[in-house]
């Protein structure tokens, strides 16, 4: 397993994340709706809005993880996804040396497929991801990528518009 790396702009990124006042806040319907829609749309058991804190990923909204609201950052897929601008797709985690022996793959929730769209603010800081996860390997075609990108856009409107 390759632990999630740290972006060069980490200090500013963490400051931006804390300034967004999202971490450890109660569930909000406007965010729940987005992950519920994503889970239905892509027919996946797990959909998340994951925020990458200094040593953990914390879920602002989640479908399919029960009471779990965070995991370690080192084992997070989303910690890898925030290192890029485009959507990170892992068709089969067991076939990917970065994730094959990751405990989230070898143990519950047995991740096999992952697609995560980084939530990048206008100032360039990636706060986390909107991601969908399956327990079976699968592919994502161009239309599915475009739909996930649109949902990410709608989520960013909520995050940056503060339409609470």
């Amino acid at each position: 397993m390759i632990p999630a790396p740290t972006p060069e702009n980490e200090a500013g990124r963490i400051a931006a994340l804390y300034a967004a006042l999202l971490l450890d806040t109660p569930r909000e319907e406007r965010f729940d709706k987005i992950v519920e829609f994503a889970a239905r749309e892509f027919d996946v058991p797990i959909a998340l809005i994951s925020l990458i804190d200094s040593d953990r990923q914390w879920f602002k909204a989640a479908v399919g993880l029960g009471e779990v609201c965070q995991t370690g950052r080192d084992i997070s897929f989303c910690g890898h996804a925030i290192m890029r601008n485009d959507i990170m797709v892992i068709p089969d985690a067991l076939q990917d040396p970065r994730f094959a022996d990751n405990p989230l793959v070898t143990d519950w929730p047995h991740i096999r497929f992952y697609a995560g769209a980084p939530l990048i603010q206008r100032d360039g800081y990636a706060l986390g991801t909107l991601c969908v996860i399956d327990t079976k390997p699968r592919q994502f075609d161009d239309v599915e990528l475009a739909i996930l990108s649109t949902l990410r856009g709608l989520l960013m409107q909520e995050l940056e518009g503060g339409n609470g």
Partner: protein
Amino acid sequence: MAEQNMLLVEPETMLRRTVAMTARSLGMAHIHEAASVTMARELLRHQKFDGAVIAIDAGGGHDLSLLDQLRQGRTLSKATIPVAVLAEQCDGTLLAALRERGVNRVILKPFRARTLLDCFSALAQG
């Protein structure tokens, strides 16, 4: 080929927005959004459309009035434009009514953005 103008009448905001925005990002047809039949009538008054996807569920029944308006040529659009409808369920009576109105496709729940995008692509090809 000139960009085609399509109409999507669907009350659920996230589904409607996702379809319209994704179609735009993929360079597909320009999908105009209406959250209700009333809003759709307003759009039809000012714009000519090349196809439409219309949600017809209405308070436990079905509202086919917009479809009738289109098919009777009481809009700027051609009366023969391809039309698909979204319905929670469809029995024989409804299917007969939709056939009579020349509906090209019936999409049943669960409604997915992907299904609607594929439908718009098919409608755009006539």
